[in-house]
């Protein structure tokens, strides 16, 4: 099994992008005119961000993106990836599973209920999916016994 090399930095960069996109979508949820997006019968960001499905229990989905990506950034810091504390790795995994569950719901809503695709939202969905793939496939390594201890697998930057 390969050691972690690129996963920490890739996941961190993806999380930062996700946070930025979520901030933008949150702003445009409240100020639709600020939304820069193509609009045709397939792609229509405004239709998606202003749809009834854009809120869950009155909370804008874009804002839930912020709630997702802020802790994800912290959990994807190289120090967090190197940690011997399994709880950090389990939290990262749980958060990514929650995120991917959410995007499955949101993709379903876009395709079958709203019937429009929001490109900005899709970029966040893809980011979340890639994050899930990275975290899920890295989890057997970081959750293995002894990981992060001085006996453990050196990860990116560990040997510097």
């Amino acid at each position, binding site marked *: *099994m*390969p*050691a972690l090399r690129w996963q920490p930095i890739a996941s961190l960069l993806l999380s930062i992008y996700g946070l930025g996109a979520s901030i933008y979508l949150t702003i445009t949820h409240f100020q639709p005119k600020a939304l820069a997006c193509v609009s045709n*019968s397939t792609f*229509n960001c405004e*239709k998606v961000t202003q*749809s*009834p499905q854009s809120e869950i229990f009155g909370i804008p989905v874009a804002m839930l993106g912020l709630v997702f990506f802020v802790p994800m950034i912290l959990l994807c810091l190289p120090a967090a990836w190197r940690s*011997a504390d399994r709880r950090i790795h389990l939290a990262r995994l749980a958060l990514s*599973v929650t995120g*991917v569950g959410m*995007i*499955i719901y949101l*993709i*379903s809503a876009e*395709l*079958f*209920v*709203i*019937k*429009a695709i929001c490109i900005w939202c899709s970029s966040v969905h893809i980011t979340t*999916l890639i994050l*899930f*793939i990275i975290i*899920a*496939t890295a*989890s*057997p*390594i970081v*959750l*293995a*016994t*002894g*990981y992060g*201890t*001085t*006996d*453990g*697998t*050196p990860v990116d930057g560990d*040997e510097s």
Partner: protein
Amino acid sequence: MADKQQKPVTGGNKPKPTGNGGQSAKDKSRAASRPVAAKGAAGGKGGNTPRPGKSGAAAPRPSGSRTGVLVAWGSVALVVVIIAVLFIVNATKSTTQNLSYTPVTPAPAQVVSDVANIPLSTWNKVGVTSQFPVAKPNILSGQPAMTLDGKSPAMLYYGAEYCPYCAAERWAMATALARFGTWSNLKITASSHTDVDAATNTFSFYGATLDSPYLTFKAVEQYTNVPVSGTPGAYTNLQNPTKEEGAIISKYSSSKFLPNASSSGGVSFPFVNINNLALISGASYDPQILAGQTWTDISSGLSDPTNPITQAILTTGNYMSAAICNSTKGQPGDVCTSSGVQAAAKALGISAS
């Protein structure tokens, strides 16, 4: 932690290549300070292969078990498959929809009954309060009352069966007009399957009549929802306005009466003219709120003033009712003096009696 480190690790990594023929100075330092228990891990059954070179005494890298790896990649595969299936189902559905349309069929009796028997208390509770935004009609002043077929007051609707905005507006018109008369031959259909707000369930006013002692209502559905083969966005012609209707449409759809009308001319569907007093161009509320709703879903909710869809439909209907009441000089009284219609009249700055 020490106990955990003593557990054997199943599966295993291949030896990690080391730079400079072995560990770095930092690694050596770590190995030197490594707890004895940790070193013991190297001897575990099924554990990692010890690192080569000087690090032979060092503990192996931890790794995921084979089961863990399988679960991880299995989960990833499952998620990817689920998302792929969603897109494939959607693509298949779209392909099917592209080739089809919702036929026009007689409206179920229950739907017509629901539309015609909305409790006055529901109308009044909704008034002009809607969770979803509802646009007010444009109110004109100084225009002569509309005459159609020699009768006045009158109301004219000009739209098309494919048009999603008409689909939304028809629900409000059907409910509002049912307060002033009795519908016959109402049909149900849906908007275009390929336009925005695809397949929004609605009525067709083609062939429908409103028997009313107060108002003459005429509807023109210019196009069907049947696509013209080979011409995307085109639909077969259904009904042309009469000369009288055409003159009214032409005059009142201009930018002189509709501030948002295109300066280059043309009519936006739907165009609704209530006795040359109130004009509606386009949908009063977003058709998207009707997405996924069947005819009976919508009609059965019309007696619930807390239903957001009902609120949008009845708010629009109260605006229309207020304009009609202004034209009928407050007839029928129970409708025109109701608090919902009065609230709408006040919002429009007109009298409903």
